[in-house]
């Protein structure tokens, strides 16, 4: 079973709660996904329309909330959001996002490392969203990140695992769980990440904007399971040449 910072998860599909057409569709999709960890953002309440409340739609017994710091542009802003999230009853878990570029929403490695270090010191369980940079993953691990969340492709692009080679290195080196986040646009992308040995994936847009979000959530759940099973089973390797014995040319020196 997946374990992050001492907490166990049966499902290796984490889901985001943004971009759904309604709270009700979101609830149905997330329940269908069997996901146990959902990310949530923090925002000001709309004073003119305070109604729509995600907390009341989702059963917190079923879903573990992972507050994110979306919108933060530097470490300081992220730390402020982290403290607010904790005060909101979000616990001390945090998906750390520091994204200074509003166009691509790519994470800032330097500010992310700084914020991780400080938040870990303050007792937070930090899961930083990061570019698929293997050394950064190790540096984040070294300062106490509970997991690392490399992106598959820029967020919202649905392009899949463009960072495959880098993620492969991260998986082979990391001691903490690796959660592939962002850019996974189809169940096959999620399955690929899981086959490679990712510990979990986080999917939001691909489910939220699907023609039928509930059906797509089920499809992702199956893909994640299939990918994990394949990883555990040990994938066969590709290649055509395979003869039981080959001439030992070049080894004639052996005595």
């Amino acid at each position, binding site marked *: 079973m997946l374990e992050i910072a001492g907490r166990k998860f049966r499902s290796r599909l984490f889901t*985001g*709660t*943004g*971009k*759904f057409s309604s*709270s009700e569709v*979101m609830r149905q999709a997330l329940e269908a996904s069997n996901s146990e960890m959902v*990310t*949530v*953002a*923090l*925002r*000001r*309440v709309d*004073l003119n329309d*305070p*109604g729509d*409340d*995600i*907390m*009341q739609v989702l059963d917190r017994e079923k879903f573990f*909330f992972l*507050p*994110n710091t*979306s919108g933060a542009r530097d470490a300081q802003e992220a730390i402020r959001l982290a*403290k*607010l*999230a904790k*005060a*909101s*009853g*979000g616990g001390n878990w945090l998906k750390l996002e520091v994204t200074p570029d509003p166009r691509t929403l790519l994470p800032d490695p330097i500010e992310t490392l700084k914020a991780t270090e400080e938040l870990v010191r303050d007792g937070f369980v930090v899961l930083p969203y990061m570019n698929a940079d293997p050394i950064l993953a190790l540096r984040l691990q070294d300062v106490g990140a509970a997991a690392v969340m490399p992106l598959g492709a820029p*967020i919202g692009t649905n392009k899949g695992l463009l960072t495959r080679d880098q993620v492969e290195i991260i998986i082979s080196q990391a001691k903490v769980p690796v959660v592939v986040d*962002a850019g996974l646009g189809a169940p096959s992308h999620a399955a690929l990440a899981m086959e490679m040995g990712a510990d979990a994936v*986080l999917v*939001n*847009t691909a489910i939220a904007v699907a023609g039928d979000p509930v059906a797509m959530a089920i499809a992702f759940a199956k893909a994640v399971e299939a990918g994990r099973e394949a990883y555990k089973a040990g994938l066969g390797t590709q290649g055509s040449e395979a003869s039981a014995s080959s001439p030992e040319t070049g080894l004639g020196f052996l005595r």
Partner: protein
Amino acid sequence: MEIIVNGENKNIDSGTSVEGYLKTLDINLETVVLECDGGILKRDEYPVRILKEGSVLEVIRFIGGG
């Protein structure tokens, strides 16, 4: 007197407590977090914290996000 709530100017009576003001809004207090003049307020501070002229209040809660 005037205070700033979530970036908007609001007129309230002087001597109003945070809780008193929130009751005028249709908000479930259990699901929000408040930041007043840069500091996070604990739940038991709501009735006793009196808003001042120019107080900056942030009313925040979880919303959907990835």
